[in-house]
């Protein structure tokens, strides 16, 4: 990390170069590839909130929903104001991505404020409540398609934009937490009361973590909306939030590399399980169970917590909680 800026530029240049070769990829693999990128952004951004700052959130999908819906609404409404050429609509798309991120950041600010008074399980439940409220508002909003879902977005999201955002997100978060200023995040996580006693403005750090995390989740939502071209409130439910949390925990809280790896594994694994039914040498009940991927997923979650609560790649327990 000597010259992080150069690294970032190299990474983005690599994305651009790689995107020339994605045309021939099997669309199914391409779909998985983009989903991996989006999940990395989600996991890395939640890692800032939970892994680095120690604020437990069960509502990350809510921020993603805000970003997805507001950016989709923007491109659907203003998509062609600059003209119909690709640079014009693409420009609107980029503005919409950013705008979606900002809208999500505003929601993050709203959620960050309760975090001043709450911690641990309580905060988790409040964030869960917030994301349910966001879902409820969308379900009642006729201009956003309400319960039918919202479609008709142009597929602007491609390999380059997805992974450029991935590179920016990783770069941004790493430079932030490794800066002198950013060590405040870790201080809040490790011992909030001691940090406060040392004169660190814990309030500011907690809210900041929520705002930045929400912004990135919102951008990820925008990328998602303009890749799948159809979004539905149920796509941003509690299960989606749990998915993201599991990525962060599996990766090891506060380990950006681990979290990225976990996002890759957890995106590919369920797709891999689809092929289990092809292995006819497996006994029938085993295949039946593997078909039901949600049962495996929940078992995995329990076993992971029992055997390696610090995550597959993490070194420390993710939050040194109060000894109660």
């Amino acid at each position, binding site marked *: 990390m000597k010259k992080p800026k150069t690294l970032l530029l190299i990474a983005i240049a690599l994305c651009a170069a790689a995107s020339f070769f994605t045309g021939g990829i099997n669309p199914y693999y391409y779909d998985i590839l983009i989903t991996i990128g989006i999940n990395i952004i989600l996991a890395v951004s939640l890692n800032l909130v939970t892994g680095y700052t120690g604020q*437990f959130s069960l509502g990350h999908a809510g921020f993603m929903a805000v970003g997805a819906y507001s950016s989709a609404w923007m491109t659907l409404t203003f998509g062609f104001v600059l003209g119909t050429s690709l640079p014009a609509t693409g420009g609107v798309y980029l503005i919409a991505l950013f705008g979606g991120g900002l809208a999500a950041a505003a929601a993050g600010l709203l959620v960050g404020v*309760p975090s001043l*008074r*709450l*911690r*641990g*399980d*309580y905060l*988790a*439940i*409040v964030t869960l*409540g*917030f994301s*349910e*409220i966001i879902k*409820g*508002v969308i*379900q*009642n909003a006729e201009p956003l398609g309400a319960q039918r879902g919202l479609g008709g977005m142009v597929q602007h999201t491609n390999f380059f934009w997805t992974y450029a955002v991935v590179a920016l997100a990783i770069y941004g978060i790493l430079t932030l937490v490794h800066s002198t200023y950013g060590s405040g995040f870790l201080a809040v996580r490790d011992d909030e*009361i001691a940090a406060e006693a040392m004169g660190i403005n814990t309030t500011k750090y907690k809210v900041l973590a929520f705002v930045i995390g929400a912004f990135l989740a919102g951008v990820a939502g925008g990328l998602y909306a303009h890749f799948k071209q159809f979004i539905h409130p149920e796509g941003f439910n509690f299960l989606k939030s*749990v998915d993201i*949390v*599991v990525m962060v*925990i599996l990766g090891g809280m506060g380990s950006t590399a681990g979290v990225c790896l976990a996002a890759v594994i957890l995106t590919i694994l369920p797709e891999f399980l689809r092929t289990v039914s092809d292995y006819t040498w497996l006994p029938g009940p085993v295949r*039946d*169970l593997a078909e*039901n991927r*949600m*049962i495996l*997923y*929940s*078992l*995995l*979650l*329990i076993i992971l*917590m*029992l055997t390696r*609560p610090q995550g597959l790649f993490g070194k420390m*327990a*993710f*939050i*040194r*909680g*109060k000894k*109660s």
Partner: protein
Amino acid sequence: MIEFLQQLINGLSQGAIYALIALGYTMVFGVLRFINFAHGDIYMLGAFAGFYTAPKLLSLTGGGPSYGGAALVLVAAMALCAAAGVIIERLCYRPLRAQPRLTVLIAAIGVSLFLENGGQFFFGADPQAFPEIIADSAIELPASWGEFASLTLTIGQLIVIGSTIVLLAALRTIVKYTRTGMAMRALSLNPLAASLMGVNTDAVISFTFAIGSALAGAAGILTSIQQPSIDPLMGINAGLKAFVAAVLGGIGNIPGAALGGVIIGVLEALVVGYINPTYRDPLVFAVLILVLLFKPSGLLGKAEREKV
């Protein structure tokens, strides 16, 4: 006016169910300081326990719906759920007791997802018709009540509210007047001191899970008397609402959980009846957030200072 009173009655009978489930959340939180996310699914297990045992138990008492048979079904479901609760605690939560609370919370989410999806796998995803264990019907109110005679009160509602009161009283007796109850209270005040004083922590925690799960099981049966259609995902919504009820009343506080349940039930009925049902869930969560922001200890809870 009649409509308003009717909504109050509707809300009260639903709130009683929430109260029973909320008690389990509150008791576990009291001794372990963690949110048992899978508690709502125990309620679902209770309903299915009744579904599978009722035909056999009813045939013991003559076959048809009867109060004796219903009581047997209730006891059977409570026993099975108590066992399930104890097993889950033993296998999934006890090994994690020294870990940070959030590790346990994730494990609990895992258990919850497992029960829901396992339920779909083993019981089937289709809703099942719960056998009629008590013939539910409306009670004729005396005509001398004037316009109030048009109110509807069903036997099912009376049974739900009555059973809830009885179970609450029983719980209060256990917690207040038995040695185990005293141990539970000691544990929730100071676990270390309690164990130093010779309280068998493991046994008391198991007992707490048994009681809390048995109450959820009872709620599962009582709901099914009124709403005889059960499915493996029925615990999600009820569990969340009951949790909100527990927090609203002051988590860790037993009368608080009962009060919270009733308030949430009535609030829901009023929102659905007078505003718009689509705002019911968001509004319940908004109440939760407001309570946590302005009175985090809940309506009846005592404020607790964070210690260094």
